[in-house]
């Protein structure tokens, strides 16, 4: 198992830059998520770590050793592809044993290893079947089997659940996470599904247009988004943004939103001009005592909670409240924002201002 360090990694395809100077560290045994919208360079980053694509510049260190320019076969990394890429001309057993045969392992030992992996994954009964007729879930398990049988330094998984239907995804993602917890293998997992990333990952890198926007634990990324992009991408419904013109002073504990002073964590830097106050829907409470007002335009009932959509002087806002809270469309109510969880962004750079709350958060 291994620690993987990525330093200023860059990849150009002709005139197009797919990855622009990424840096992050994947600790030994971590379940690490590469998250971002389609086309942001996740697969390219993963393929560079695996050695299927050579970086234009930058470094990849596996256990302190620079492997940036080494071919895939010399990196001792296993990969699960999105479409599984099981060898169609081989049966399940031979698919799983393929990586071992390449190392010249003796037959008896190969058989023992395959049997062990099959037991872990619960696929003993299909070992002698051709891979052609397998169900999606079984293909997934065989692909995993082929990856774990070799005990490589790290696993790369490119949207391994993407080909499965929603119900089964849930089940497989739990199985995957359980497998990881048992094996403690460094795993890099690509997904564009923010829920999947939040549920499964120890750490998340959020990418956009080839740029690392933020790198941290799911909690950090959810509570203290480093940029407007991350704030918008993570969470469902996503963070509310109240845009305003104004000034925020270093050391201040509130900003003026029109006539209302909004309390927030102590600011550690100043900004003037177009600012954006960000607040998660669950941190907006309907409270008649609050001076900040909004008019209810819709409610969406979700069982235990409801989403209330309101208009304010600074744009639309969604609040997640208890389902029992009464809110009628057309009504004007007071809105209380939980001060400890507010983020303040500079709209021109898209960056979150440093505060006492997000001081330890890594920017890309």
């Amino acid at each position, binding site marked *: 198992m291994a620690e993987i360090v990525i330093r200023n990694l860059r990849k150009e395809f002709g005139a197009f830059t797919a990855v622009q100077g990424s840096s992050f560290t994947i600790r030994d045994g971590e379940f690490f998520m590469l998250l971002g919208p389609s086309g942001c360079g996740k697969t390219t980053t993963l393929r560079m770590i695996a050695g299927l694509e050579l970086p234009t510049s930058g470094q990849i260190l596996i256990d302190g050793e620079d492997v940036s320019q080494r071919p895939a076969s010399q990196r001792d990394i296993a*990969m699960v*592809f999105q479409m599984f890429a099981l*060898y169609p*001309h081989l049966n399940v057993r031979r698919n799983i044993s*393929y990586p071992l045969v*390449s190392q010249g392992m003796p037959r008896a030992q190969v058989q023992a290893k395959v049997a062990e992996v099959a037991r872990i994954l619960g696929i003993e009964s299909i070992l002698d079947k051709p891979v052609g007729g397998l169900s999606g879930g079984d293909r997934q398990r065989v692909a995993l089997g082929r990856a774990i049988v070799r005990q490589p330094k790290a696993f790369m998984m490119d949207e391994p659940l993407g080909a499965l239907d929603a119900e089964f995804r849930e089940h497989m993602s739990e199985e995957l996470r359980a497998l990881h917890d048992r094996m403690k293998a460094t795993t890099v997992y690509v997904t564009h599904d923010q829920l999947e990333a939040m549920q499964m990952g120890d750490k998340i890198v959020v990418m956009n247009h080839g740029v690392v926007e933020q790198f941290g634990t799911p909690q950090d990324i959810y509570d203290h988004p480093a940029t407007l992009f991350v704030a918008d991408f993570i969470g469902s419904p996503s963070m509310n943004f109240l845009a305003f013109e104004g000034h925020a002073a270093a050391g201040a504990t509130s900003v003026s939103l029109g006539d209302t002073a909004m309390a927030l964590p102590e600011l550690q830097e100043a900004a003037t001009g177009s600012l954006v106050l960000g607040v998660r829907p669950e941190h907006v409470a309907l409270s008649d005592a609050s001076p900040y007002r909004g008019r209810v335009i819709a409610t969406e009932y979700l069982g235990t909670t409801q989403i209330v959509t309101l208009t304010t002087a600074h744009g639309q806002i969604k609040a997640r409240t208890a389902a029992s809270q009464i809110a009628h469309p057309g009504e004007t109510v007071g809105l209380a924002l939980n001060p400890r969880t507010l983020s303040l962004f500079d709209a021109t750079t898209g960056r979150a201002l440093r505060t006492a709350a997000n001081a330890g958060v890594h920017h890309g």
Partner: protein
Amino acid sequence: MSAYSITEPSKASKWVAGILVTLYMVITLLPLAWIISTGFKTGPDSISYPPKVIFSPSIEGYVNLFTDRTRATPEQLATMPPPDNFVDEIVQRRGEVVTGPSRFGERFLNSIIIGFGSTALSIVLGTLAAYAFSRFKVPLKDDLLFFILSTRMMPPIAVAIPIFLMYRQLGLSDTHLGMILLYTGVNISLAVWLLKGFIDEIPREYEEAALIDGYTRFQAFRKVVLPQAATGIASTAIFCLIFAWNEYAFAVLLTSGNAQTAPPFIPTIIGVGGQDWPAVAAGATLFLLPVMIFTILLRKHLLRGITFGAVRK
């Protein structure tokens, strides 16, 4: 239901279809059947009028095909020991003696060496080139592919004279190597284009999985790409073999003594001692066999290959 909906075909239309297919089969197979049966006729039977459909079979044609003979006077025949094998018996009954084996066996072997040799070379070069075009960044890829295709745009015989002169200069005239190179040159464009289509259909992930599993690029090609391209390779090989096997014009022009193939040889049989139709028919029958056997052996792959990868995914 309207008359146009898809239903189980009626009895009548099944009959009509059956009759049409049978008719087509008869039309295409009749000449073949005639050739094969002529090969087993005697000389007089083969040219009798009206033509004989029922006849007593003889292997005279095959004996003539494989032997050179000369006429002998009755006195000469009388001095000879009685024939001790069926070949001498058949020949002497007609007042002839065998002077030696004919060159047919040699020509047939030439056809096999040149046909299969050029097919193998086209496939090896074609597969490697197609793989490179399919997977790597090749400078001027599109232009190169078009150039390769363009070599097939004129009939090969149009360049017969320059090739004739070049081959004489290079000492390739009338050599096996020369003919193998020539047929490979003609076939390679077809091979590259067909095989590139097949290899394009094989997802890259398979090879990448093999690379990550610790195989080198060439091992991945051999163990992962080749087995999956088997269909394409089989059908391409059949196309290449059919061309090289049947080629006549260059064979007449460039070969005579040493590397002559069967197609230019078979017509010469006719001139040896009158019009020996049974021997010609016997030669033609034997000539059909290798391609037929090769195609039957690869039939399973060919049928899958005809869909050009459409079955995958």
